[in-house]
């Protein structure tokens, strides 16, 4: 009986024209992310600096309320292959953040009111985390700690498509028969489809300096680009060096092939 079902169920699914909406669809399984085109894809892919700068703005004004970016240091904002800020701009961005200060002359970490002493950020600092530790992050977010975003684009299968699908995948009707747990949001791209994160992006959540219209899709695209750069800051250098190495190896292969043929020319083998 069980075996018969095992064979019958997928067969039935095959018979239905649109398998995704087939009766047998597993509602706890995430659907695959939407395929988008990204400027960094392909052997010559590069980041779009304007997208990265806008994505940085989205991270700063929206995501950073809950998500840390612990592995990204401010000086990298001015690095080649990055968002293309000038060193002075990167310095100003750093100074706009309050970083937990080192102990002062009296060895104090807290002021008279018990507040943690802070200092303005410098280029060598990384983005400060919104919560002092994982437990605090968990407690403030209904038991689910928002993950650090530094590597998220590489730490999820099909990272960029997944992030973009997830960010734009809120607000879909909850299918009949799916039990959404209390305090969760339905998002078909998330494993289990019930995510603790409320829809983070709303139309016009940020105001872009370059006049780009801040639609949810636009902000999601921009921040996905930014997070890909955060995870793989050397991508442009890699693609550029790769081209040189490949070109060299092809020439060398040609020379080696000719030498090989020449050496064996008069020898049957």
């Amino acid at each position, binding site marked *: 009986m069980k075996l018969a079902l095992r064979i019958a169920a997928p067969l039935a699914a095959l018979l239905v024209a649109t398998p995704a909406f087939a009766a047998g669809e597993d509602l706890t399984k995430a659907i695959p992310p939407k395929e988008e085109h990204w400027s960094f894809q392909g052997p010559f892919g590069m980041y779009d600096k304007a997208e990265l700068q806008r994505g940085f703005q989205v991270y700063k004004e929206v995501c950073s309320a809950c998500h840390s970016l612990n592995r990204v240091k401010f000086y990298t904002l001015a690095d080649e292959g990055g968002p293309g800020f000038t060193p002075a701009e990167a310095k100003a961005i750093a100074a706009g953040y309050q970083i937990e200060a080192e102990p002062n002359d009296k060895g104090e970490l807290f002021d008279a009111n018990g507040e943690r002493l802070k200092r303005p950020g410098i280029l060598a600092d990384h983005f400060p985390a919104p919560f002092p530790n994982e437990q605090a992050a968990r407690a403030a977010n209904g038991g689910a700690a928002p993950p650090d975003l530094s590597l998220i684009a590489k730490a999820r299968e099909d990272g960029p498509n997944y992030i973009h699908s997830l960010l734009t995948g809120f607000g879909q009707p909850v299918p009949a028969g799916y039990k959404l747990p209390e305090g969760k949001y339905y998002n078909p791209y998330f494993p289990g489809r019930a995510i603790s994160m409320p829809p983070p992006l709303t139309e016009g959540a940020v105001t872009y300096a370059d006049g780009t219209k801040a639609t949810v899709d636009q902000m999601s695209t921009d921040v996905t680009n930014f997070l890909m750069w955060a995870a793989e800051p050397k991508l442009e250098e890699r693609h550029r060096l790769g081209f040189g190495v490949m070109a060299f190896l092809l020439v060398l292969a040609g020379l*080696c092939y000719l030498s090989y043929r020449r050496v064996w020319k008069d020898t*049957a*083998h």
Partner: protein
Amino acid sequence: MSGPSTYVPANGFTRWLDSRLPILRLMNDTMTSFPTPRNLNFWYTFGGILTFCLAVQIVTGIVLAMHYVPNDKMAFDSVENIMRDVNYGWLLRYVHANGASMFFLAVYIHMFRGLYYGSYKAPREVLWILGVVIYLLMMATGFLGYVLPWGQMSFWGATVITNFFSAIPVVGESVTHWLWGGFAVGDPTLNRFFSLHYLLPFVIAGVVGLHIWALHVPGNNNPLGIDVKGPQDTVPFHPFYTAKDAFYLVLFAILFAGLVFYSPNFVGEVDNYTPANPLVTPEHIVPEWYYLPFYAMLRSVPDKLLGVLTMFGAIAILFFAPWLDTSKVRSARFRPLLKPAFWLLVADCLILGYVGKNKPDAMLLSTGIPLLWIGRIGTLYYYGYFLVLLPILGLIETPKPLPESIAKAVGDKSHAAE
């Protein structure tokens, strides 16, 4: 070496050195004048490629160790610092990580080539056994190295693999605690794994030396599997095989570079970009692709101890291949029954890899056939090939007629004229 040395010192210094340390003589006899069958094909270039792989892994590994910190609190961060801050750190790490895959790709081709052309058979049994030792050491080294970045897959892979030893009766638990240096995989484990990961490649290099030594006593096997009858069957290693090996090495390097520069995370697992967390197990733990067939064999047996034995047995059985094969003919070219059996073995290993990659309760595509059973059949065939087919086929099959000599077979016109 086969035959007397042909080395003639060119000048006074080399004569002086030759009577004190005949290293130039050794190099000449093994890498220059060494008589090599003239009919070695593409599949024989992987020995040189493997030497290149070992060198790349050792050199990149040494410089990565200059930046890596083997501590459970800092390992992941140090790897990310290599990726972000160290000059060319991303390149060195991607070369090292993908180098492991390229190394295993080459070693599998090398091993299957040996199985196909009967290179494990007399008089090359010791050569083959040393090769299996190298393969075992590579597996150990690869596993230890995969633990070092201390991501989720590192941690849980280490937990699963070290738990194999808990299957040993009576002392299993003590052995695992001894391996871990604690009651679970942790900082002491990471530290010793780093130490061993640094050590083993040099042991491999040593065994490679023995492997090459053992190769140079009987000389190379060849695609015809027949013995070299005389000088007309051979060419000096240099320039013939240096030129050929160099060309295929560059092709291999192109594939390698393609992976490193354009798809550096293709063979990796996304979960390893999340730092190790002893409280959360990833949904689906898979080893690196080069262990997958063995992982499938492990899971095909419902009993823990038997599963581990099945898996290790699959490697151990390779040691006995020279004596399990009863055929007088080496090359599968002339063995009509072994040839299909061999290709089925290749397919079997690929299928087992596919089974190992998927979740234990997965079905074959959408047919509803449980992969578990496919894994079981695959495991049976793997063992069957060595324990049943190799001994029996050699006795029952009628080999095709062997060519008289390599020179005749390749149709050397200059010799025909002699």
